[in-house]
């Protein structure tokens, strides 16, 4: 299932609704949908807030116990894997709340890959269901 959308304030809301419909139709396990729903919303909101682009394409697939969502956008190149991880050792009162969305994506996804080519960014999220083998490595470029 592939969807093309303009990047605007309703992008995350609209595409997460599409994700929910896809998950119901394809019987995606609840845990996998929960994780993908959050990760997709975070990335799409990042596009709206920071990318400067105006087009996004999202492809959803669920097969062989792998829930895979590919997001393409024509905004500024941005690899979320390059973002410094949140330092959880800092005590709560002093811990910065920036980077929380990317921290959530890293925690919720089994694989995240990114590439930039000819003006388009491609980010791929993979969530394995319990029946599929464990991720190795957890993240790769």
């Amino acid at each position, binding site marked *: 299932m592939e969807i093309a959308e303009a990047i605007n304030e309703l992008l995350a809301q609209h595409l997460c609704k599409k994700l929910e419909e896809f998950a119901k139709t394809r019987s995606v396990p609840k845990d996998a949908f*929960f994780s993908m*729903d959050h990760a997709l*919303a*975070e990335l799409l909101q990042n596009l709206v807030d920071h990318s400067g682009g105006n087009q996004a394409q999202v492809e959803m697939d669920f097969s062989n116990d792998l829930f895979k969502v590919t997001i393409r956008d024509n905004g500024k190149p941005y690899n979320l894997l390059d973002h410094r991880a949140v330092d959880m050792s800092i005590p709560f009162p002093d*811990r910065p709340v920036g980077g*929380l969305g990317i*921290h959530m994506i890293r925690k919720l996804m089994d694989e995240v890959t990114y590439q930039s080519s000819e003006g388009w960014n491609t980010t791929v999220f993979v969530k394995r269901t319990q029946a599929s083998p464990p991720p190795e490595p957890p993240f790769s470029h």
Partner: protein
Amino acid sequence: MIPFTCLTNGDNCEIVVDRRIDGETANQLEIELLAIEKTSTKKAYINLAACTFICSAGIRVILQYHRRFKTAHRSLLVSRLSPEADQILELTGFKDSIVEPNH
């Protein structure tokens, strides 16, 4: 649809969230918390029993106002976490700091 309802009882106030705190709802939650901050409310709670989704923007709003309330010697805590809300707050590492102890 209104994403949450606000119940007041004396100096206490409870915001009951309906289903999702996404980017748009986070903005509305911030407006609600700002309004509560201007009242004499001493203890405010965000009831997440029906909440199945919290984005990072929503967590940032809760953290921001939790800190502001604390500075003013008042309190803002989240309560009655759904399993989904519990999971998200746990993985962000903020759960122990902002959840009502006996939720």
